[in-house]
C-alpha cells in the first residue's frame, strides 16, 4: 500500500515525486514506458518561459513565474543544464505594437522582472541575425533554456534517493475506488494507494474518467520541430518568439542549452494521442516561419526533426485539483506550455494538496542535492586526466560528435533508474544526439546496454517497451 501513486513520469510527475519525497510518505511513480521523460517532456521547446504569456491570475501565470524563479537555484542543486539567455518576442507590423505593449503589461502584472519594449533596431543590435521586417520587440531578460531530459531525470533520481519508488513499463489500465483509497489495475499487477496523482500527460483525461464523472478532455496538440547542428547554434543567443498574428501562432528560433539551434513548433490539434510523426507540410511550415524572424538559417545543417504532443486541456488553464467526486484523486492535467517551466512549481503545488490530505511528517534527512553524470566534454585536460586515472572508461570516446565517453555511458546505464534503451542513454549523456545521429556510436552503446541487462544485442530497444496492442488487449 502506497500513500501516493503518481501516474506519469514526465517533468510534472517527477517534480511532484521529488517534493513528496521530503515527507514520510510511501510514494511510487508509475509510467507505461521503460524510462522517465518519454512523453510530452521529451519533445518540446525546452524553454524556461519568463511568464508574460499566461493570463494574469491564472494558475498557469502563477506557476510559470514561480517555476521560472526557482530554476536557477534548482539547476545548481540538482545539476542539470539551464541558462538564462533572455527572450525576444518579435513584432513585424507597426499596427500590432499595441499587442506587444499589452503582452509587456501582462508580464509586469504577472510579476516578470525586467520586461520592456525595444525598437526593431535595438532588437537587431541584440540579435544581428534578425530580419529587417522586425519593427519592435518585447525583451524578457529572465527567459531561459533548459535540458528537459536532465531536469526530469534530476527530479526522478533525487526522488529515488529520498525513497520514492519507480514502477516503469507499467501501464495503468483501470482504477477502482477502495475503502482506503484506490486500486490501480496495471499491466504488471494491482497497486494499492491512498492517494493518486494523475500526471499522465495526453492520457490524463482517460485516467480521470476512470474515477470521475466530471467532464475533462485533453487534446493532443502536435508540434513539429527541426534541430540544427551545433555549428548553427550561435546564429541567435536569445530565444526568439513571434508575436501571434492573424496568420496564426508563430514559431520560435532558439539556441538549446547544449548549443544546437531549435526551430518550431507547429500547432495542430489532433485526436491520436500517439501521433508523433513528422510531416512534409509541418517541416515546410517551420522553415517558412522561422525565416520571418531570422536571416540565414542554414537548413543544410538540420540534423533531425521531431514531433511533440502538448496536452491541451479544455479550460485553457492547468487543471490541478482534487476531484470533487473522487476524494484523494488529484488531477495534474492540461499541462501544456509553459508546463516544463512550471514543473518545479507544480511539484510544490501538488505537494501542498497531498499534504493537506495526508498530513505527513517531514523527513529530517531529506537530501536536496543530486549529482548528474559527468559532462566529459566540458572538463579541463587536468580534470579529464584525473577522471581517466580513476576510471579508464572515461578514456574511450564512444560518441565522437558530442565527445561522450564510455565512462559516461556506463554511468548512465549503471546509476539507479539507469537507461535501458538507446534513447535513454541519449537523453542522459547526449551520445547519439549529434550530427551523425548515432551512426557510429550505436553499436557500442547497444553492446554496453546488452551487457548490463544480460540480453542480446537485437533485444536492446531504441525506446520504450510499451506495446499499444498489449494495452488494447488488456
Amino acid at each position, binding site marked *: 500500500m502506497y500513500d501516493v501513486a503518481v501516474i506519469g513520469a514526465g517533468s510534472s510527475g517527477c517534480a511532484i515525486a521529488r517534493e513528496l519525497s521530503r515527507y514520510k510518505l510511501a510514494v511510487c511513480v508509475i509510467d507505461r514506458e521503460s524510462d522517465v521523460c518519454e512523453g510530452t517532456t521529451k519533445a518540446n521547446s525546452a524553454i524556461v518561459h519568463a511568464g508574460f504569456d499566461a493570463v494574469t491570475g491564472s494558475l498557469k501565470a502563477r506557476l510559470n513565474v514561480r517555476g521560472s524563479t526557482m530554476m536557477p537555484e534548482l539547476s545548481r542543486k540538482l545539476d542539470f543544464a539551464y541558462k538564462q539567455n533572455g527572450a525576444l518576442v518579435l513584432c513585424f507590423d507597426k499596427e500590432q505594437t499595441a499587442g506587444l505593449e499589452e503582452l509587456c503589461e501582462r508580464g509586469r502584472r504577472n510579476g516578470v522582472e525586467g520586461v520592456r519594449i525595444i525598437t526593431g533596431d535595438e532588437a537587431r543590435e541584440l540579435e544581428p541575425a534578425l530580419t529587417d521586417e522586425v519593427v519592435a520587440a518585447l525583451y524578457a531578460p529572465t527567459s531561459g533554456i533548459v535540458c528537459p531530459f536532465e531536469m526530469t531525470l534530476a527530479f526522478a533520481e533525487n526522488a529515488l534517493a529520498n525513497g520514492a519508488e519507480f514502477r516503469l513499463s507499467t501501464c495503468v489500465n483501470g482504477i477502482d475506488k477502495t475503502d482506503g483509497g484506490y486500486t490501480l489495475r496495471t499491466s504488471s499487477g494491482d497497486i494499492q494507494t491512498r492517494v493518486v496523482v494523475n500526471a499522465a500527460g495526453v492520457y490524463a483525461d482517460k485516467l480521470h474518467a476512470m474515477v470521475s464523472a466530471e467532464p475533462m478532455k485533453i487534446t493532443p496538440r502536435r508540434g513539429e520541430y527541426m*534541430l540544427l547542428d551545433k*555549428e548553427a547554434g550561435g546564429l541567435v543567443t536569445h530565444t526568439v518568439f513571434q508575436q501571434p498574428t492573424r496568420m496564426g501562432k508563430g514559431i520560435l528560433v532558439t539556441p538549446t542549452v547544449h548549443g544546437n539551434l531549435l526551430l518550431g513548433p507547429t500547432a495542430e490539434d489532433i485526436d491520436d494521442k*500517439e501521433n*508523433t*510523426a*513528422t*510531416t*512534409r507540410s*509541418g*517541416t515546410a511550415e517551420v522553415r517558412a516561419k522561422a525565416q520571418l524572424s531570422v536571416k540565414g538559417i542554414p537548413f543544410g545543417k*538540420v*540534423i*533531425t*526533426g*521531431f514531433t511533440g504532443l502538448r496536452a491541451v486541456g479544455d479550460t485553457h488553464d492547468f487543471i490541478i485539483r482534487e476531484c470533487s467526486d473522487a476524494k484523494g484523486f488529484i488531477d495534474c492535467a492540461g499541462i501544456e506550455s509553459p508546463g516544463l517551466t512550471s514543473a518545479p512549481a507544480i511539484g510544490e503545488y501538488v505537494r501542498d494538496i497531498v499534504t493537506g490530505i495526508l498530513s505527513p511528517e517531514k523527513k529530517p534527512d531529506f537530501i536536496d542535492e543530486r549529482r548528474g553524470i559527468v559532462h566529459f566534454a566540458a572538463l579541463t*585536460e*587536468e580534470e*579529464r*586526466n584525473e577522471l*581517466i*586515472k580513476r576510471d*579508464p*572508461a572515461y*578514456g*574511450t*570516446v564512444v560518441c*565522437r*560528435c558530442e*565527445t561522450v565517453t564510455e565512462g559516461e555511458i556506463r554511468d548512465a546505464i549503471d546509476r539507479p533508474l539507469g537507461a535501458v534503451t538507446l534513447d535513454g542513454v541519449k537523453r542522459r549523456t547526449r551520445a547519439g544526439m549529434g*550530427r*551523425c*545521429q*548515432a*551512426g*557510429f556510436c*550505436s*553499436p557500442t552503446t*547497444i*553492446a554496453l546496454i546488452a551487457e548490463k541487462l544480460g540480453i*542480446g*544485442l*537485437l533485444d536492446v*530497444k*531504441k*525506446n*520504450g517497451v*510499451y*506495446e*499499444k496492442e498489449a494495452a488494447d488487449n488488456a
Partner: protein
Amino acid sequence: MREFDLVIIGGGPAGMAAAIAAKKQGIDDLVIFERGDELGGILNQCIHNGFGLHTFKEELTGPEYAERYSDQVKELGIPYELGTMVLDMTEDKQISIISRSRGAETVKAKAVVLAMGCRERPRGALGIAGFRPQGVYTAGTAQKLVNCEGVIPGKEVVILGSGDIGLIMARRMTLEGAKVRAVVELMPYSSGLKRNIVQCLDDYGIPLMLSHTVIDIKGKRRLEGVWVAAVDEKNTPIKGTEEYFPCDTLLLSCGLIPENELSKSAGIELSPLTSGPTVDESLETNIEGVFACGNVLHVHDLVDFVSEEAVRAGENAAEYIKGKPSSTGVPVAVKPADGVRYTVPSRLYAESAADSVHIRFRVTGVFKNSAIVVSCGERELFRKRGRIFVPSEMQDIIIKKDKLSELDGDIEVRIEEAAK
C-alpha cells in the same frame, strides 16, 4: 609535452598509406592516432571483395587490403596509438588527445596529415517525414552490426539511396537471409558504382527504383513499413504514385560527409563543394604543414585512389618537415565549370608543383561521349574523351608540369558534351 615531426590523424587506409610514405622518405619521428581498437578504419567492416584491383592487381576484401598496409606499418616500425581520440587541434598544431592508457594530453607536431575519413548522412538530415522507430539505420551502421557484431537488424528491408554501401548491404542482407524489397534512389541515376549495381542488385533480382524516394515512415516503436513515391524533375513526390512497402528495416545510403569538425577547430578552410579542406596540388591546406587525404578531403569510391592520394600527402608532409619551402609563387584557382561539381585541388602553385599534377573531381550528371577539358582562359591544358562519365565515379586526371607554365588566370575543368 610530447613533440612529433609528423602526426597522422586516423589509422584507416589514408592514414596508413601517408605514414608509410613519410617513413620511406626518412621521417622517423611520427605517430598515427587511431580512435578504433585496430588499424584499418572502416575497411575492417567491409568484408566483401573488390578492393585493391588497381594497387595490387588482385581482388582483396577490406580487412585484407587494410592488412597489407598495417603489416607494412608494423614492419617499418611506425608508432601508432590505438583507442586514441583526437579532440582538438589548434592552428599551431597542438593536438589534444585522450586514451585509456595515457589519459588526456596535448602533443605538438611540425606537420599533420588529416585522415579522419567521413560519416554517413543520417535520416534526420534527409527530412523524411514519419515516425522515428527502431529499424532505421544508415547502411554503414547496419554493416557494422552484421559484419562485426554478428547480428542481422531485420528480415524485410528497403534501402533508400543507392550509394555503394547501400548496394553492398543489399547483397549482404540477402546473403544473410533477409528479403531486400527495393533500393530506392531519388536521382535518375545511381550514386553507386556500376559493378556494384550488377553484382549486388541485378544478380539477386533486387529492383532499383530510380527517381523515387521514401515519403513516410510508419510504425511508432518498431518500423512497420515505408511509403515510396516517384519524384518529378524537381525531386517533388508525384501524387498517385505512392506505393507501400511493409518492412522492418530501412537502410539509408544517401551520401557521405567528410568529417572535418577537427579541421574547423584548427581554422582550416573548408570547401562548401566537398565539405573537405581546400588544398593545393601538394594536398596542403591553408595552414602550412597540414595536409589532407582520403575521405576527409573528398569522398572516394575506390580505396585504391585513397591510398595513392595519401602517399602524396605523406611524401609532401615529409618534404615539408625536411625544410622544403612550402608552395612558392602565386597560386591560381582551380575551378569546376560545366558538368563538374568540384575539383581537388582548388588552388595550384604551378611554380613549385611536382612533375605532374593530379586533378580529381566528380561530374554533375551522366555524360555520354563527352570530353574532359581543362583550360586556362583560351588556352587548353588538357583534353580527354570518354564514352561515359557518371557522378558515382571519381575522375582522376594527370597534367604534366610543362603544360602549366606561365598560367595567366584561373584553371577551369569542364565537361564538353558531344554535339547533338
